[in-house]
């Protein structure tokens, strides 16, 4: 009994010791200890921490062009070159819903990318740097990314709130800044950045060339044409050159051509390709977490040829989602339904038409035209014969089921043989020297230097074996046509049209003005001229195609406006809620 008592006393005193030990060091006992995640305090303490942030920024560039409904889909579907087939009535794009597209999500997602830049910019002096150039090179890249995304915002959404620093607590009193104030700010950031960015770097890394290219765009947007010309010249003088000779993965296929080579994603970051200024990087061989779901080019831009609406001569379905056609043209969904203008209109020049143009960008080998689409249903009597649109049950069916395909751009086979052919993983151009020439052409044109502009344009045209243009023909429409021919599915088309619209409005050209921008603007007029979808009142999904001038700018998501309870974020004129707007802020410290 005694031993038991003793033993128990032992346990008791052990218990007391536990009390004692725990109370004696209690502050340590309750200290939270993160085990499997980093916090800002233990990462942004060295150069490598900042470099890790830059990795995220570089990866974010891929949001432009990979995955279902990426940003470029919206940019092209609301332009002179394409239309959004499942939401043809732009009145259905409201601050609350973008239906099947991501006009609203894009807005908040872009701010997510801006946040990463802001963290780096805010914390840049939290550590001691070895030297100024090391610090400034890192800061320059962050400035570039922030400028890139604000450039995209102000040309898609107009006036938006400018956030320039890392947020460390709740903030609900955002206000809208004027587009012009934001352009001023990113201009000065980029002017700093180009001094410190490296002349050359690995794939996906921002270089001085990418800095000057973006700066040229910003100068243009800000109506500083001479500076734009100068910035573009810096790039053109740089270590870049237009690709004029065959190269890359298909170089030994004699029936292909340099334009084909130039548009193979596997060639974008090939060191032989001296035309690339900046490409986003996305590879199938990367670990699953490091790669996207693919470029989706065939899915988004190609017609829905394999749907049962494509009838054969007996009225039976002529197509199946397998076999020929499907394997090379993919499972098209026409999210960006190509306009007649892009398929045919802009290729007519000096007597040449799309049928016989020398322009490689519309050559037969590079495109799959309607007459080349063939019935692929083995059960059809017409198997292997060309698709005949007169067999379609309803004329409107041609709209999204049968149209010509710029195969040289869209063709991205899946590396994964089991995957549906939507367009596989691949790099994509962000900036390419051909665009730099066209930017300089535009800068020169606005300055009235049309001969120089024509020379720049012809650099691009001659490489594509197109007939040269003359100084007398130069105007903004011609430059935009050339951009369409050269940069389709590569440039943010809607943004660039809006940028030009603002230039015309601010300069008061053609009767445009900033005051009446939501009622009358160059964007809407050009889209109306070049894209007859809206005039034709096409009816699909119970939607009747419709667009107004104010749709030049996309709506600010209402959830952003309502969550900002302590301030007013402006809505673009024409959309519900704009009546609460306050004048935008015109300066940024």
């Amino acid at each position: 009994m005694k031993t038991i008592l003793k033993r128990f006393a032992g346990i008791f005193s052990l218990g007391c010791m536990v009390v004692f030990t725990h109370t004696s060091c209690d502050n340590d006992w309750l200290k939270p200890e993160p085990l499997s995640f980093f916090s800002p305090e233990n990462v942004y303490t060295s150069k490598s921490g900042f470099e890790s942030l830059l990795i995220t920024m570089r990866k974010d560039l891929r949001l432009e062009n990979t995955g279902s409904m990426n940003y470029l889909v919206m940019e092209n579907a609301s332009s002179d070159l394409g239309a959004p087939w499942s939401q043809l009535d732009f009145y259905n794009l409201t601050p609350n819903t973008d239906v099947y597209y991501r006009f609203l999500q894009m807005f908040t997602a872009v701010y997510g990318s801006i946040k990463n830049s802001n963290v780096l910019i805010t914390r840049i002096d939290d550590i001691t740097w070895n030297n100024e150039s090391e610090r400034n090179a890192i800061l320059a890249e962050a400035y570039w990314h922030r400028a890139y995304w604000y450039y995209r915002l102000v040309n898609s959404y107009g006036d938006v709130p400018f956030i320039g620093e890392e947020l460390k607590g709740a903030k609900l009193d955002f206000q809208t800044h004027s587009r012009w104030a934001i352009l001023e700010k990113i201009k000065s950031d980029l002017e700093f950045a180009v001094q410190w960015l490296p002349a050359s770097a690995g794939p996906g890394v921002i270089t001085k060339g990418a800095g000057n290219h973006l700066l040229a765009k910003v100068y243009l947007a800000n109506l500083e044409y001479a500076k734009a010309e100068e910035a573009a010249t810096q790039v053109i003088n740089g270590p870049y050159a237009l690709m004029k000779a065959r190269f890359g993965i298909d170089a030994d296929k004699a029936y292909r051509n340099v334009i084909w080579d130039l548009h193979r994603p596997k060639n974008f970051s090939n060191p032989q390709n001296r035309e690339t200024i900046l490409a986003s990087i996305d590879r199938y061989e990367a670990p699953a977490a490091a790669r996207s779901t693919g470029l989706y080019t065939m899915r988004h831009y190609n017609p829905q040829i394999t749907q049962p609406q494509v009838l054969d001569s007996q009225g039976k379905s002529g197509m199946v989602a397998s076999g020929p056609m499907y394997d090379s043209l993919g499972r098209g969904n026409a999210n960006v339904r190509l306009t007649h203008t892009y398929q045919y209109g802009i290729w007519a020049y000096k007597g040449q038409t799309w049928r016989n143009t020398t322009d490689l960008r519309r050559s037969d080998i590079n495109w799959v035209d309607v007459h080349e689409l063939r019935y692929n249903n083995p059960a059809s009597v017409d198997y292997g014969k060309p698709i005949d649109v007169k067999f379609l049950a309803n004329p409107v069916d041609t709209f999204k089921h049968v149209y010509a395909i710029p195969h040289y751009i869209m063709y991205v086979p899946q590396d994964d043989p089991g995957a549906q052919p939507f367009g596989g993983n691949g790099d994509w151009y962000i900036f390419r020297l051909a665009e730099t020439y066209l930017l300089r052409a535009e800068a020169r044109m606005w300055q009235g230097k049309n001969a120089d502009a024509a020379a720049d344009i012809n650099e691009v045209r001659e490489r594509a074996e197109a007939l040269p243009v003359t100084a007398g023909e130069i105007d903004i429409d011609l430059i935009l046509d050339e951009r369409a021919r050269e940069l389709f599915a590569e440039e943010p088309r809607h943004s660039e049209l809006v940028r030009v619209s603002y230039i015309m409005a601010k300069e008061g050209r053609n009767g445009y003005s900033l005051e009446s921008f939501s009622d009358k603007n160059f964007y809407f007029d050009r889209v109306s001229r070049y894209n007859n979808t809206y005039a034709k009142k096409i009816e699909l999904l119970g939607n009747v195609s419709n667009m107004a001038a104010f749709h030049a700018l996309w709506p600010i998501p209402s959830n952003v406006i309502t969550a900002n309870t302590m301030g007013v974020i402006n809505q673009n004129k024409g959309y519900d809620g704009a009546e609460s707007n306050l004048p935008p802020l015109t300066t940024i410290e």
Partner: protein
Amino acid sequence: MNKNLINSTRLLPYGLLQLCMLLLFCGISNAQALKEVSGKVTEKATQSTLPGVNVLVQGTQRGVTTDADGNYSIEAAPEETLVFSFIGYENTSVIVGNQSIIDIEMASSLTNLDELVVVGYGTMKKSDLTGAVVRLDAKTFQNQPMTQLSDMLTGTIAGFNANQGTTASGGSSMEIRGPKSLNAGTEPMLVVDGVIFNGSMADINPADIETVDILKDASSAAVFGARAAAGVILVTTKKGKEGKPTINFSSSIGVAGTTSKYLPYDGEGYLTFRRDAMRANNPSMPSFYYDNPGNLPSGVTLDQWRAASNNAQTDNTREWLSRLRFFDVETKNYLEGKTVDWHDQVMQKGVRQNYNVSIGGGSKNVSYYWSLGYENNEGVIRGDQFAAIRSRLNVDFKVTDKISFGANTQFSDRDEGAVMATNVGSNGLPNLGQMYVMSPYGDAFDEEGNAVWFPNTFATGSPIINYYGQKRLRKQHNFFTSLYGKIDLPFGFSYKLSFQPRYTWLKDYNFYPSTTITGGQTYANGYGTRLDNSVFEYMIDHLVHWNKTFDDHSLDLTLLYNVEKYQDWSSTMSNISFVPNQNLGFNALQYGTNPGVISDDRKQTGDAVMARLNYGYKDKYLITASVRRDGYSAFGVMNPRAVFPAVALAWKLSDENFFESDIINQLKLRASWGVNGNRDIGAYSALAQLASNMYYDGTNVQVGVFNQTLSNHALVWEKTQSLNVGVDMSLWNNRVNATVEAYDMTTTDLLMRRLLPEITGFKDITSNLGKLGNKGLEFNMSSVNINRSDFTWRSSFNFALNRNQIKNLFGDYEEVVENGQTVRRELPDYSNQWFPGQALDRVWDYNIQGIWQADEKDAAAVYRLQPGDFKAVDVDNNGVYEALTDKQFIGYSAPRFRLGLRNEFTFLKNFSASIFIRGDLGHMAAFTDGLRRGGADTYDRRSTMDFPYWTAENPTNEYARLNTNTNVFGGGINFYKSASFVRLQDLSVSYNVPADVVSRLKLSSLRVFASGRNLITIDKWPGWDPESAGSNLPMPRITTVGLNLSF
């Protein structure tokens, strides 16, 4: 396909077992030498005679009732025992022996007011309680199917809000008295045999439960301080009793169907739906274009019909199906008359089995209870299955009179590796969406019998792919024990030290071979993952207890010191593209070619000190005061500790000399006040977290970082202060017991994820803001309505209402002009729909009046709407639906009133029956399917749910057209339907096999029973079941039979 066969074969051995049992009962009892025994029964205190007392010969069917003068007469053998029972009095038993006259005095039992109730860190007589505590006796539920403890709690206690779970694992949402938090967890804390249990309720076998006590008010829960705000559930498990071992065996088997049907279209319905969908999408086509050529509307000729197409096929039926955009496989199956019933493919009748065996007993110095249970439930969705082996060992050794040691140990092995024939969301709940989009004319299986990925060749994947293809192992092993030593010290002190380790080990291994979409299309050549997680946590409680009574004073003091530490470790590995083949599955992930690893470990710590004093004066005036100081690492950066005080008073009014009543036997008034905390926000919520971002630059894999959450180092506990008043009474010889409670609770420093404008790059920030109020009223009553030896009827009734109000939110104000006056008002949170001054569950939305009809075309056009679209009230009548001006408060999403009524009967000597009716009333739920969201662009290629829609030919004023336009409703619109219901939730009948049969079988008791759950529901919910309206999942209707025997 093979899985279907298993269900029926699995039943076979069980059926044989039941049969054998029945055969055993076919004995005939022997006659015994009986003599007549008679006597009188009187009330001990008053010496008055007691009529109506049941007199039963123990273990037999022989019983009588005393007459008006308290006399009885019965036949019994000398070795037999007479048992006297009467409601409100303690049972008395007497061995007959050689007596022929047996007079009995019966003492009043104070019934349930006198029983011992478990409170935090101790027990109390119910009559001495000062707080709001409710006891449930597990016996009440012994005849109904129970998978988890929560099955006892759904609807049965006023103020305990629990909805039934829908899956095979059971479980439910639980909330005591209303939502006291915006974002932190509101699940009550579990305490098992006196110690806090952080594990899953699913680890506790309901068959091991003796009683459940619910602490509802702040005072009774305050001893658990920091975590008690959501209420506390105290579970007491069975213990061995002194005497020879008692072996108990029970088993039940049942079938689960659904309470209602919410189906996809069948073949005929699909054709009609597709016709209407095509018409709606293509209004410019003649409406007869999509009609069956064999059944054209009058006035339309076949030629007209054919000519409407530019290129009509020669075969009219094929042409028609082509117009309906049928895929080839659909046309083929239509022509062959083949359809697939997707409901049958996805859903099933689930078989449920439950077996329990236990041995309990003890001697003077040792008591023991051991049990082993096996549960295997199938859900109503094919593949949904929950299997568990649960075991418990409770032992207690008395070393001396003053020292005891013991352990309460539980082990469970849960098998959750079933793959459902549907998608499963990240919350673990199934999502039946895929079932509805499948074409009934598609192919479920190909010629080889393999499930087809895309049954009608359109991109909608078949729901059953993973069921037939995915391989899964998900096992969770849980071990929890409370090891304790207790010593009685001089001067009324006692000390208890206990140590509670808890271990869990989880394996979740999955392999998606190429036959699945995940392993064949999303990832090439297979995809496998392995998650291994283990948890180790412990708590140490030092408990000092002091009990002293002198003169009229009684004192009871409890002191506690507690420390706790929790750690868990998770590793996930994955791989894809397996070579040379996928035969080894998740057992050999190294054969994949693109591995991935993730590890995620967590740690949290806490400590607490607590003191409680119970003081009673003359056993009439009772006071309880307690204070607890808690520490928790999640708040450790700046505010590691907080203090939670409470005090409660009770007055036993009926014990006062001046209290005279023939009706009221007992009357007690109670009042309590206290503060409880809630820390359930996550171990690292105060810290800013970075997330990783893997990137490949074409040469190297790089890891990027980005800020994922914002920090808030100042985070503190959420505190709920509550006031509770209660009245307990018992009436008419304790035949009626009633409790009324009223409470007022205020929660401050709400832990919330405050939403930020998303342009910040963050969705939210964890903050302490605002103030939330809950007021309510609860009423519990139990009564013995009829108490005769051949028939008894008892009822219990509960009613509860809770009124909730957001008193403050973020503290941001605006000035607005209302009725010409400038009013300063707090800004609401529109994103979360939180409005200061309104209930948390207030529904703020457009008030849908009906549907725009054909003759209202022009009025609808003002809103850019058409006939068939929703017609909502435009409050300011400006022709635009704007959220801030046109949304209104249109209802509540939580029940306004809850009630439950249980009636229990015994009849025909050996039968008993129980009926439980439950109602949740006055609330609404969003019927999101009614918005037809995201369907319009693919309605021409797939199916959908079978519920009504508006068409010009069949206009309704309730449901919108198929491709209704909801874009014009600023801020979005939701479509609400009433979720009120009254249901017959439980019905059970049991039969006690007569004692003479039982004893011949060498058993001490044998009971067979049958029960049904959710047999009848009265409601207006258009989806599956109003109780699961939030998830819109099928609610099981379960019928069970079973037996229980002991020897």
